[in-house]
């Protein structure tokens, strides 16, 4: 729990890998998991004489992000070289943005334990990823794979606005949801598509100035983010309380030991010698482009949730569940388009029967064998009285197993519910005549006997009689 004497200050730098087909400065593919160096083009290998050309798709995604967080999309931004040597950095510099990034400002509202908080963003800039060093033993050497070199990244930098690991995790989760929602990043944390660096410092409550911060690099799960911050906060408080001093440095999180350790200290910190990349001209984004991107943007999760509650009358919980992902809410919207006015029924089936089935069979919504119009068509047979809820579930199973559309299954199995009043009345009369004992008991006040009679009618109709009509008719006859 929060320490009464110390305040924690956290800012996050998040690297979101942009979901482009090709790299940010070359035409090489970005697919994950290819044979080493098979996706490194001449440009990615930094061969003598090669030059970068910027990928429109990467810029477009940065614009989308800027618009989604209410930031300024800078009409002119500059690519700079960040110079340092590392064997997985082929040019000896990383192309990034320094003085003028593509996106400035904006922010995200997070919710921690029902309390809302606005976290400001400093900036978001485009840059290229580096390659990978493989440490398996090659006779005491490391192997360099440059497939990832040149993959487009959006580095999203927050202000130091977070005051606990819980807030940091809430922020990271919110950002993770957002980048997937707006379709700029696949969010795959195992593959490194979304990773966070946390800047952590502590200060005595009531003080204005920030304490010395440490940067914890490359946290690729929310749990690690939380654990790393928790550990780091403890470490810094203990250090200061023990008379020590926090040294500004970069630290690595060791998930096995659940601790952070020094990677490099400020003293041997790099001097990156940033300067505008002479191979690239200023990136200019005009209003028309921004307007076009804005017009194509999906409604954001908050806006979607509000609409589901206010326009479609769903509960906050339902709205929350339906906006878990773009795919879910898109599916819902497609169902509702086919079955207007039945929001609750659609939500129940999507979040109930379909979700359970997807979960059980480990299938993605995008690959569900029943699409939204098909599921809506099934639900229509409930609203028009053709199927009971129970029958609909059987039809759903059949549809899942590829037996065709709802109507085809109903026809093939002769499942249509009997709603014809005359037909039901005939069965009801037969049952009353055949079960005088139950009739007697019901009249004597035993409700159970009534249920038995309903059961007999349903049995006689082979389950097809409309249950509501059966109940109504029985009451009328016996009453």
């Amino acid at each position, binding site marked *: 729990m929060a320490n009464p004497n110390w305040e924690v200050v956290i800012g996050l730098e998040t690297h979101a890998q942009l979901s482009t087909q090709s790299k940010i400065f070359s035409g090489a593919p970005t697919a994950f998991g290819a044979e080493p160096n098979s996706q490194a083009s001449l440009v990615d290998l930094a*061969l*003598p*004489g090669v030059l970068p050309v910027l990928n429109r798709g990467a810029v477009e995604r940065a614009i989308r992000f800027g618009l989604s967080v209410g930031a300024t999309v800078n009409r002119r931004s500059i690519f700079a070289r960040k*110079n340092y040597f590392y064997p997985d950095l082929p040019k000896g510099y990383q192309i990034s943005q320094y003085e003028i990034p593509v996106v400035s400002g904006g922010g995200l509202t997070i919710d921690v334990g029902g309390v809302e908080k606005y976290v400001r963003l400093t900036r978001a800039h485009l840059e290229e990823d580096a390659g990978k060093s493989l440490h398996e033993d090659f006779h005491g050497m490391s192997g360099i794979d440059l497939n990832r070199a040149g993959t487009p990244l959006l580095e999203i930098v927050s202000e130091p606005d977070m005051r606990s690991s819980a807030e940091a995790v809430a922020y990271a989760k919110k950002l993770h949801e957002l980048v997937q929602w707006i379709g700029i990043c696949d969010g795959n944390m195992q593959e490194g598509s979304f990773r966070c660096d946390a800047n952590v410092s502590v200060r005595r409550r009531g003080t204005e100035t920030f304490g010395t911060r440490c940067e914890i690099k490359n946290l690729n799960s929310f749990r690690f983010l939380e654990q790393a911050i928790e550990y780091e906060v403890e470490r810094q408080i203990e250090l200061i309380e023990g008379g020590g001093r926090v040294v500004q440095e970069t630290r690595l999180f060791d998930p096995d030991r659940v601790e952070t350790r020094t990677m490099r200290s400020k003293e041997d910190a790099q001097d990156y010698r940033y300067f505008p990349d002479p191979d690239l001209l200023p990136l200019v984004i005009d209003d028309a482009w921004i307007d076009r991107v804005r017009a194509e943007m999906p409604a954001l999760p908050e806006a979607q949730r509000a609409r589901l509650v206010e326009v479609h009358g769903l509960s906050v919980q339902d709205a929350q569940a339906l906006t878990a992902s773009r795919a879910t809410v898109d599916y819902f919207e497609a169902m509702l388009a086919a079955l207007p006015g039945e929001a609750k029924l659609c939500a129940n089936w999507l979040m109930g029967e379909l979700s359970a089935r997807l979960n059980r069979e480990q299938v993605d919504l995008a690959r569900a064998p029943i699409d939204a119009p098909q599921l809506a068509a099934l639900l229509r047979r409930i609203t028009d009285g053709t199927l009971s809820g129970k029958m609909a579930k059987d039809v759903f199973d059949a549809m899942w197993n590829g037996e065709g559309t709802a109507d085809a299954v109903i026809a093939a199995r002769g499942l249509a519910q009997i709603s014809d009043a005359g037909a039901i009345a005939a069965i009801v009369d037969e049952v009353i005549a055949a079960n005088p004992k139950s009739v007697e008991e019901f009249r004597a006040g035993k409700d159970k006997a009534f249920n038995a009679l309903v059961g007999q009618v349903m049995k006689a109709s082979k389950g097809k009689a409309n249950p509501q009509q059966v109940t109504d008719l029985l009451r009328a006859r016996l009453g």
Partner: protein
Amino acid sequence: MSVDGSTGLARASVAELARLLAAKEVSAVDLATLFLGRIDAHRDLNAFLDVRPEATLAQARDADRRRAAGETGPLLGVPLAHKDIFVTRDWASTAASRMLKGYMSPFDATVVEQLAAAGMVCLGKVNCDEFAMGSSNENSAYGPVLNPWDKGAVPGGSSGGSSAAVAARIAPVATATDTGGSIREPAAFTGITGTKPTYGRPSRWGMIAFASSLDTAGLMTVSAEDAAIVLSAMMGFDPRDSTSVDRPPEDCTRDLQRPVKGLRIGVPKEFFGPGLSPDVEQSVRAALDVYRGLGAELVEISLPNAALGIPVYYVVAPAECSSNLSRFDGVRYGHRASEYRDLEDMISRSRAEGLGPEPKRRILIGTYVLSHGYYDAYYLKAQQVRRLIADEFRRAFETCDVIAGPVTSTVAFGFGEKAADPVSMYLADLYTVPGSLAGIPSMSIPCGFGDKGRPVGLQLMADYFQEARMLGAAHQYQLATDWHRQVPAGF
């Protein structure tokens, strides 16, 4: 072919070779064989770094086949040499550095591709200063190139192999690159025509980078007419180079016949200061008189900040080079030290062994001017002064069509004369650097001989994209004079 005949052929211009090839009086294979023979006979110049006769003859045979199939074009079958800054698939690409000894590029530079598409036949790769850094060609890891006019003199640099090869007529044309004067200074030192077009017109794709915002591909030729013909084939837009100018291809020969009568020639008074040696001044002034005689109007102009070109250049170019040369780390290609303690030591030793003194010096300068706390005082400041210099040119071109003056303050100097003193070497580019910083087209044409009978060059500069106008003015001078026809004794 008689010896006289072949010598005459070797002295022919591109325009003349084109006529002979078109008339089928000579084949591409004949020309390739002739020049390969001359290259071999003049190996002492050390102009060529890589010659592969089989590859050259294969290209020549292909050019002859293309002509037999009905293809025409002024460059089909004309031989040329490429400065070893352009990467080539079929010849090693070393930038005259030990770092890239034997390096085989998996692709051709755009300029190489474009000239091959026009049917030119590559004779091989020519020497230069390491990574194009130098003004004397003494910085090549593969030894200096000799000046064909005087083997005790430097051929200029960095494109010293290109200039010596054309001056000695062991190649009729050579590509070259100019970052601060690397085409014009060697052209002046060897009495040939050296042309640097507007920055961004020829593609930089496949040019081993020295200073990206200055590097410009160009040509060493016998005449301005040749430059106009070849340049027209190598200025096409290249989508692989973000700084390539997207303009339709241009016929640079269009102003060749345009008389210079009425041409306003700006003469910057600062280019005729006390630093200019009298022999050079005399030849340059005589050339200006020729123009006056042809009806041109001489206008005195002032470029007060041009003198700051050298300090600005020695901040900007080293800064860019320090970053551009970081890729040479011994990891993926290039020299790797044979002994080292660890990874960092491997990289530091590989670079120390693979790079020569001049690139190292410039990398250190560049590292310093970009480092924390010095960026504003040096790099930013230099880029601001650079704009002042460019603005001065802009204003000058409101009162004149071309600018004329000396290329260098002296004729070619001797080996070792300046090698120990980098600053005096850097000052060799005093008159060429301002045009490079602005990015305007400029060239050197031979205009006489100075001390020790060494050639003198006249520099012409024009506004952005006005290379045709500049080449026309040069051609008109060459119609009236024969300095460009002079060939050193023994060649």
